[in-house]
């Protein structure tokens, strides 16, 4: 939607779908879903490697002209996350970072104490911080106060595909947000993404729902359409929910026999 840009840290994007590359069965599939999703921003992780060929993910992304958002996935403490963000800045020449500090392997839920600590340090160090956070309006507010350029509440835990478990909290976060709200994690299928946009989120970040689908490229197309549909519906303004019917055909002038 050219007349409705999605602006993060002063950068305008046309697509409101941010794609995680994790979980794709092959580099070929990464390439296919990047194209099918129409995304302009995709996430990558940073790992140890000494191989000449391991840099090829970046080649695939660069060939498609897509901006890279490095994440701090796997970090459990603020110290680790800050270090990973510094590495990513040097590796990818971007000061954008998806800040992810998780508490434990079982839930992969954000650890709010470490998250706030890391966010503060990174903002002070000049990063554009997009934190992956719990669906907690208070925490979202605190992250904005620190200077994060977006907040990214979860719909449900990473990889669960359980959708948006607390739509009310997402609405609360949206209602007082001063930066873009991006629904991150928990999307299972297209209707979840559409719902996120209908609730007022500015964008959706998802990975597994696409990369682990039976036909990843087709699901990427579905997500692109769902995000657009949800955004249109949000802007168009939905009708109120009513307890009783409200006829859509005229009730007067019925033919008389």
């Amino acid at each position, binding site marked *: 939607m050219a007349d409705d840009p999605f602006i993060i840290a002063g950068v305008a994007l046309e697509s409101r779908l941010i794609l*995680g590359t994790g979980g794709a069965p092959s580099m070929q599939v990464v390439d296919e879903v990047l194209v099918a999703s129409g995304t302009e921003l995709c996430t990558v992780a940073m790992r140890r490697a000494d191989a000449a060929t391991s*840099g090829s993910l970046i080649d695939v992304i660069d060939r498609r002209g897509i901006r890279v958002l490095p994440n701090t996935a796997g970090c459990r403490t603020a110290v680790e996350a800050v270090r990973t963000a510094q*590495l990513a800045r040097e590796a990818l*020449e971007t000061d954008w970072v998806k800040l992810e500090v998780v508490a434990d392997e079982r839930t992969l839920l954000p650890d709010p104490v470490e998250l706030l600590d890391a966010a503060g340090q990174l903002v002070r160090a000049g990063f554009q911080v997009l934190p992956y956070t719990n669906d907690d309006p208070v925490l979202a507010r605190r992250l904005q106060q620190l200077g994060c350029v977006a907040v990214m509440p979860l719909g449900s835990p990473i990889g669960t595909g359980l959708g948006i478990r607390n739509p009310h909290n997402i609405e609360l976060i949206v209602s007082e947000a001063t930066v873009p709200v991006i629904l991150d994690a928990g999307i299972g299928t297209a209707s979840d993404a559409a719902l996120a946009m209908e609730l007022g989120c500015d964008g959706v970040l998802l990975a597994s729902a696409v990369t682990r689908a039976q036909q990843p490229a087709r699901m990427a197309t579905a997500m692109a359409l769902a995000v657009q549909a949800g955004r249109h519906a949000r802007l168009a303004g939905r009708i109120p929910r009513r307890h009783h019917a409200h006829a859509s055909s005229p009730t007067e002038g019925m033919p008389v026999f």
Partner: protein
Amino acid sequence: MIVTINGEDRDIADGSTVAALIDDLLGSSRGSAAVVDGDVVPRSEWDSLVLRAGQEIELIVAVQGG
């Protein structure tokens, strides 16, 4: 000279810079970063930072991730 790269002892040319090491092992510098003795090396110092024997180097690249 011997340095440790990602936990393994490796023989590299004396006087190698971080830039040379990354170019040699990773081919492309795009998506790559280096930590030398615990410090992240800024890209602007890759050409000038000459490695010394015995240093511990971590090489990091971008991989698939959500």
